[in-house]
């Protein structure tokens, strides 16, 4: 997964207020808030940076064991994928996924 590049799903509306990202899911009308670390990651999912680059940015930005950070970020990406909040940029985007 580390070389994969992701985009936010089309069903997602989002912005960041005071360092915390908020997500409104247009199809289910659910509202989510990300914590500071998750928001940092979320804001880098732009269809340009791959997962490996985002992990590097996290290990540089946050204190802690780099291998633990790597595991946490990977788990977070898996959650985002399973919740259909992001999509691999390389896949067809007929259902969801804008260019960033």
């Amino acid at each position: 997964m580390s070389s994969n590049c992701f985009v936010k799903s089309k069903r997602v509306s989002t912005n960041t207020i005071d360092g915390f990202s908020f997500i409104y899911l247009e199809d289910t009308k659910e509202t989510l808030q990300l914590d500071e670390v998750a928001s940092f990651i979320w804001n880098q999912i732009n269809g340009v940076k791959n997962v490996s680059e985002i992990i590097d940015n996290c290990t540089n930005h946050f204190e802690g064991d780099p291998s633990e950070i790597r595991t946490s970020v990977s788990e977070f990406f898996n959650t985002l994928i399973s919740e259909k909040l992001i999509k691999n940029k390389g896949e067809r985007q007929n259902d969801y996924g804008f260019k960033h």
Partner: protein
Amino acid sequence: MITDLSIKNITDLAKQKIVPVSMLVEVCHTCNEKCIHCCLDKHDSKGLQLHQYEKLFDQMVEVGTLFVILTGGEPFTRPDFMEIVKSARERHLSVTIFTNGILLTKKIIQELKKLFIQEVHISLYSASSETHDEITKTKGSFKKSVRALKWLAGAGITTRIKCPLMNKNCDDVDDLKKITKELKVDVQFTSVITSKNNGDGSTQLLRMTESQTKIALADSKIDKHSFAPINFSDHPENCVPCDVVFNGGSIDPYGNVFACNQLRVCGGNILKKPLVEIWKNSSEFQKIRNIRLKDLNQCVGCDLFKYCVRCPGLALLEDGNILGCSTIAKNNAIARKELGVYPGQTHIFTERCK
């Protein structure tokens, strides 16, 4: 890392941090109806160009906006309106559209569905085609608006009817409620017909009579009720009379940024200054943000206060003083007092601790 919350949590945080989380954008003033109660005094502006809206949406993302209402005039009179919607959605802004639905087609609705827009609100003034078309001054408009409602609901897009009540249509409330059930859409009634934006009060003649107003305000579907009065008058130094320019504002088709589409105090123009600069540095907006309940001399101590839903925009537009009494709010408060019902619109007076 992820927490569930409500939209109100976001708007409350935005108010606390002074972030325009919700913005209303009038993309044109052109319209294909001629509604007798319209608040616009002229309908000539075709709006900004697409690339200017793209730039505006970039600035909205930067300043913290999440929810955008796109309206007009009638927004679909713009041939490029769907491009504007797409542009907002590409930036992951949540889009709600206010329209009369006349120009909607099944193809457009499918595109809206694919773009995951939040909601469409359709103006429908009666369950009777005759009354509706008399209000819109457009023959056949009822049929087309209802057709759009059916298509939207059928496509699974969250759809609401917007119905301002006036003396011509207030007897149709029950029939309209029946239509909403049949169509499986929601309805939002409003009980105040406002003056035109230039202060022309001719539309006030369309307002419900005193007895009609009482019937309307007794209906909790039209006027949300509270079981107990909202009482902030114990600490008027902290109480903000309205949320405007704390967590939202509006932009007209010329690019002027207003405190609200009802409170026409302009903070600047996006063609001259970035939105973020207008939002943060406008002295006009700052003056409004500094208003507290204690500044509303006629409200503090008024025995109608707990029954009143005062709009500062209407107080300024119709009574000439943003800090003064709003006659229409006062009249409705008198009606509520006689009915013994308290208003449920808590956003009008909210506490702001410093």
